[in-house]
């Protein structure tokens, strides 16, 4: 297996798709990322991430309706699979584990630079 490892960007994409529920297609995913994560991404990068996720079996896709705004082309809607959700949970657990180990009051005095 090429790896079920979930990259950071891929994790975000998964979360975005989940949050968009059944309105997750190319344009909305990109907009959501740009707005909520405040990160400029190219369509190509997004597409690559989506292909990878689909290869890994974390998401599935299906063709949706076409629209005159899109020059009559169909949308492709993405949904997160159970496996994708499990992977997200896995990633979260790992992080939570580490967060749990950090002493709560260990704050570093100093200045934010």
């Amino acid at each position, binding site marked *: 297996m090429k790896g079920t490892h979930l990259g950071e960007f891929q994790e975000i994409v998964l979360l975005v798709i989940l949050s968009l529920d059944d309105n997750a297609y190319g*344009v909305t995913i990109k907009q959501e990322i740009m707005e909520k994560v405040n990160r400029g991404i190219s369509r190509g*990068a997004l*597409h690559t991430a989506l292909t990878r996720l689909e290869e890994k079996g974390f998401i599935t896709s299906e063709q949706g309706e076409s629209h005159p*705004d*899109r020059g009559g082309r169909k949308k*492709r809607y993405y949904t997160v699979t159970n496996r994708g959700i499990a992977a997200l949970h896995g990633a979260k657990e790992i992080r939570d584990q580490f967060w749990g180990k950090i002493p709560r009051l260990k704050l570093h005095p100093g200045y934010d630079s």
Partner: protein
Amino acid sequence: MYPELQGDLLEEFLLNVEEFGHVKARWIYRQEVLKMIRPSIVKALKKTTNSTFFGMLQINIKLAFRSLLKQKLYTAINIGGLAMSIAVSTLILLYVQSETTYDSYHPNKDRLYRLAVDRTYPDHVSQYARTPVSMAEQAAIDFPEIETYSKIFLNNGGVNVTYDNETFLENNFIAADRNFFEVFGVNLINGKRNEVFSVQNAAILSENAAVRYFGDDDPIGKILRSDLGDLIVTGVAENTPKNTHFKFDVMVDFEILDLGYLQKPNFLNFGVFNYLLLKEGVDVDVVNKKFDQLVENYAAGEIERRLRMSFADYKASGNGYNYYLQPVQDIHLNSHLEGEFQVNGNLTYIYIFSAIAVFIIILAVVNFINLATARSTERAKEVGIRKVMGSLKKQLVGQFLAESIFVTVSSTIIGLVAAYLLLPTFNNFADKTIIFQDFISLSTLVLFGLFAVLLGLFAGLYPAFFLSSFQPVAILKGRIIRGKKGQWIRNGLVVFQFLISIVLVCSTLIVGQQMKYMQNRNLGFDRENVIVLQRTAGIKDLETFKTEVKRIPGVSSIGGSSALPGSSELFFGSAFQVTGATESISLNCMVVEDEFLHTMNMNLTSGRFFSKDFEDSLSLILNESAARSLGIMNDPIGQLVMNNQDSGNPEGDKVYRVVGVVKDFNYKSLHNEITPLVIFNNERYLSGSLANLVIKADIRESSNIIRSVENLWLAQAPDQTLIYSFLDQNLSQLYATEKKSGDLFLVFTGIAILIACIGLFGLATFVIGSRVKEIAVRKVLGASTKRVLILLMHDFNRLVLIAIILSVPLVIWFMSGWLEGFAYRIQIGQTWTSFIAGGLIALAIAWVTVSYHSIKAALANPVKNLRSE
């Protein structure tokens, strides 16, 4: 490109326009697109195009199959015609391959040569395949360029060999030098190379012969009885391959033969086949130039001793020997000398057959093109609809090409299978033993596959572009395609097809004329009603045998001779000198009994035949050419002629008196001029050499006569095989190559015509199909059916007439070359009947082919064809 991506891009673009304005939105769009160029996307893109290509191919093949099935007649004609021509061409290819690979089995084939000679006489030149016994041997001593040599003697007429009371006449009985196996590519299966000739009367058998005599027993050491005495089998060699210029079943040591003057070391008597193996890197021309010196050194003295004149004078009087070497691999196709082992093939025919093979393929391709364009009227609508539905020209071309490749590939497969099935018949017909499996290998199959695809591309190209260039609007409006543009191409193709067919028809007819001429030509003797018995030397009491045969009902006379017309190797050469003349010339000779000339019904121009009433042992009869050569044409009878004998001959020179002159008769094949001939009656000459009896008999009684002769023969010569034949058949055997080629020619002509007819049929469909309305209008306006028919036929007549006119010079050029191979031939002017017949045949065939469509069109009810307007 993924439609979703495009959709996303566009949607976003519109959003951006709202937000940032047109200019920036566009800029973003471009950037986005550029950023898409990343490996993962581009790669995926490639994969998708591939799959559509294969998808299209699949669809194209499916469509091709469907459209071919829809038009069963056309498909059958197309595939059938092409398959037939491929089958025929494959057979020709096999034939050519077998003919051109003769003698390639010798290990040193590139350095192995046979010695041949152009012997110049004062009045003619003879070319002999057999050369004097000592030539090769001496050349091997004198010339440093020669590695080794070998000589072969072929016993014409065969030798009887008996084992265990079973006698076989071995026709392929040869005597060879002891280094035979070093020079030629024949391998021993049984016995050792350096031991097989260790005994004097050793015999080496071919595998076939060994099985024939001994079955499964070990042949080594067995003793065979033969005309030459007892032979001990010392070895068995593999059978000589089928494509070899000489073959043998029994081989003996050259030394045990008793050939008399032929075997004694000499440089003058053309008796054996001499082979020279040159050293590597030697230029054959260098060796060829040296033979003159060899003749000067050795033959000259012999001539001077024999003729008592200086060699310089001899040469000055027009005599000469031009020895040269023939590459052993060229013998089969290029050597047509006197006294060959067997009738050789002919390079010209190889060229002709190859050309025919190519032409037949071209004819079939032309058909394909013609039929495909002819169907354009029917397919025009299909093309129109396809274009309206959005087909690109490229795609249509692809579809038509797929169709044509489908046709050629399936034709090739069918053609190959047909060739395989026809091969036994063809072998039988062409007297060959070609094995299909030898020819089929992976590489030939790949070549055939490639050929099929290329043929399909080539044949489909014109129709594909022609059909796909239709304007959909025009077609769908119902306008019929006139195709004036392509008219000259289609007509030209049909003219070309008929041109080839007519050339073939005329050539076949002319070949037939020449064959008939040779069969009917007055040869100067009777060839019908003559039975020939060969190898009669084994009969103990010849006189009794002859009287007994004469008593058989139906037999009118019988006479013996040393040689027979048609078997030129049985004539021998000897030198003659008219008394008082200083020159001596060599002439062909034969020895006959008193009754021979009478039995053969030869014509005297002056004097008399030999007769019992005269003592004729010192008499001669000349043919007219001999009388001319000796310079005594004006007053030949009673002239004294001296026969110069070999100095070794104890009897010395003898003087003969000319008692008669016989009209020139063709004792050689009609390829050669009649050369001077001297006929002896000398009993001494007869002893041993009188090997043939000719019986003049009523041919209707032949089966009875032969049965009676067989009984007489058994009583007289029980261990000799009776060989009888009919003279006319023996003579036609001389033209076996021509006959065979003529027959093949006939078959090819038939096929070419058939294919041309298919083409014409296609053209008729097209032309008449596009004139249906015109015909209907003419009929409505009062034209009669007959009138319409004549009008329609007119076009086709014109094409055929053009083809006829073009074919005449071609045939004349081509056939005069062929006829030049015969010394006695019809004049090309006499062949005008063939041209007329050929032209009429072509016209008739064209009419028959076209009439189906023409009559159908002319009879059609005009209402039907005009209703749709």
